[in-house]
């Protein structure tokens, strides 16, 4: 009985610690401005959506959301396309230096982004790609590739090799075997990888901060990091904006919990 109570207590603690800070942000976003600067009340006495309106009125926030969606979506598609092709080759085709290549991908995950950001900035500027979503997508894709290739190589290896041989004997080219046999069978793996890549790109700050210059390509994390207000910090709007960017992720997490965890694990443990 006591053990049971202790377990429940511990679990409540886990819930409070994990969700509490974010829920507090949610409550803040609903408080009228006057209640932001005093405690109590803990709960908003008259919940209002004013801050949500304010987020979209003071700045082109819808544009930032669209930019973020384009960057995260584009990165996910490109990383899955390039990554799955490479992973298929590394899992099923003869590739000279296979181990070396896998090792190279793994070592890239250890790169501190700060060590590449200034040459990349100079390169992007020289190519006239500054302030474009394209530059961000290419860079985010590159740094998502190691994870994508590792996870997907694992998934392709689990597909019985006989299927590959059968497809080849039936006259499929290597690309057809990839496209018609392996890709559909590895769909759960592609999905798990895609979610991980999407979340990483949606959240990315450093490259977005340096490559973007104007509202044309600014993503939500950059906007949120640079939220105006040296003197009067708009706490309510910051809270509302935080909730808006995080909600899609929370929905993804709650819907696809198992797949995310399995993707994370196969990325880390192999």
């Amino acid at each position, binding site marked *: 009985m006591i053990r049971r109570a202790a377990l429940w207590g*511990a*679990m409540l603690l*886990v*819930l409070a610690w*994990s969700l509490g*800070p974010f829920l*507090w*942000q949610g409550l*803040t976003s609903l408080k009228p401005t006057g209640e932001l600067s005093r*405690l109590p009340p*803990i709960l908003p006495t008259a919940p209002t959506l004013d801050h949500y309106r304010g987020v979209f009125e003071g700045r082109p926030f819808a544009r930032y959301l669209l930019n973020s969606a384009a960057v995260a979506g584009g990165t996910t598609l490109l990383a899955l396309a*390039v*990554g799955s092709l*490479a992973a298929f*080759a590394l899992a099923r085709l*003869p*590739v000279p230096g296979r181990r070396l290549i896998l090792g*190279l991908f793994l070592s*890239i*995950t*250890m790169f*501190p*982004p*700060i*060590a*590449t*950001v*200034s*040459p*990349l*900035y*100079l390169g992007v500027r020289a190519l006239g790609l500054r302030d474009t979503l394209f530059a961000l997508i*290419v860079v985010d894709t*590159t740094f998502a*590739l190691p994870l994508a290739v590792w996870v997907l190589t694992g998934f392709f290896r689990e597909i019985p090799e006989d299927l590959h041989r059968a497809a*080849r004997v039936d006259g499929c*080219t*290597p*690309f057809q075997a990839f496209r018609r046999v392996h890709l559909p069978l590895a769909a759960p793996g592609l999905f798990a990888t895609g979610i991980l890549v999407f979340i990483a790109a949606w*959240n990315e*700050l*450093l490259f977005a901060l340096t490559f973007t210059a104007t509202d044309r390509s600014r993503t*939500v*994390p950059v906007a*949120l*990091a640079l*939220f105006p207000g040296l003197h009067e910090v708009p*706490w309510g709007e*910051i*809270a509302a904006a935080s909730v808006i960017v*995080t909600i899609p*992720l*929370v929905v*993804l*997490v*709650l819907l696809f*919990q198992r797949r995310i*965890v399995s993707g994370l*694990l196969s990325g880390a*443990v192999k």
Partner: protein
Amino acid sequence: MRPVLAREERAGPAFVTPALALIAGVALVPMLGAFWLSLHREMPVFRISRFVGLDNFAFLLRDPRFLKSLGNTAYLTFLGVAIETALGLGLALLLHRSFPGRGLARAALLVPWAVPTVVSGRLWEWILNPSYGILNHVLGTDLNWLGHPSLAIHAVLLADVWKTTPFAALLLLAGLQVVPRDLLQAARVDGAGAARTFFHVTLPFLRPALLVVLLFRTLDSFRIFDVVYVLTGGGPANTTETLSVYAYKLTFSTLDFGYGSAVAAVTFLCVLGLSLVYVRLLVGRRA
């Protein structure tokens, strides 16, 4: 069969090429570029670009701000990774038991992991606000968490631990599945207590998962940027400035690409050194 095989031999390298081209062009070449820049006095806005050899690196040793940022990074990394691993282990052991609502707790744990780091910086900034923050209200204190030199770095630590512990917990939870149940039962039958069972049965099986957690968390923590940038901006008085934040400011505020790259290069070398140590530990055990 011959033409089929020849096709496979051509296809393999061809399929890997796009990925390798991106890695080479967008990660490796810029990395080398950073080392190249670090050997120069390089300020593009003033059209200054001149080779200075290792001058930038010599200057690092005499730069108290660099040494401070190195110290801050090491402090955050070692303390942060220790706390995250310990807390993660506790959470993993808790979630490993079966009880109603375990799935809910597991899903809740993914929320801090998924929250953008910028958002986590912003929400802790609000919680820790000296005048209106809920933490001071709950504790009944009047502390300036983000403005006091010795408190601010621990505020960063708190925000980082909150965001990254779930990752450690989930990996360790997976590690716990490997521990054979009959061995745990045998230990109990033999009269070993919970602590002895943990140290003599569970922990040895958990070792690889622990090392992986330590490796990933250490490398990730050493390049910490987002949360510091948002929460404190490196202040007050550079007491929370990390290597990545200092390198970023040097490059994009001072516009000193040469010296900024030297700091970035040192960050890279530190991460490389740390990963070699871990890989040795991991591989050494397996062999």
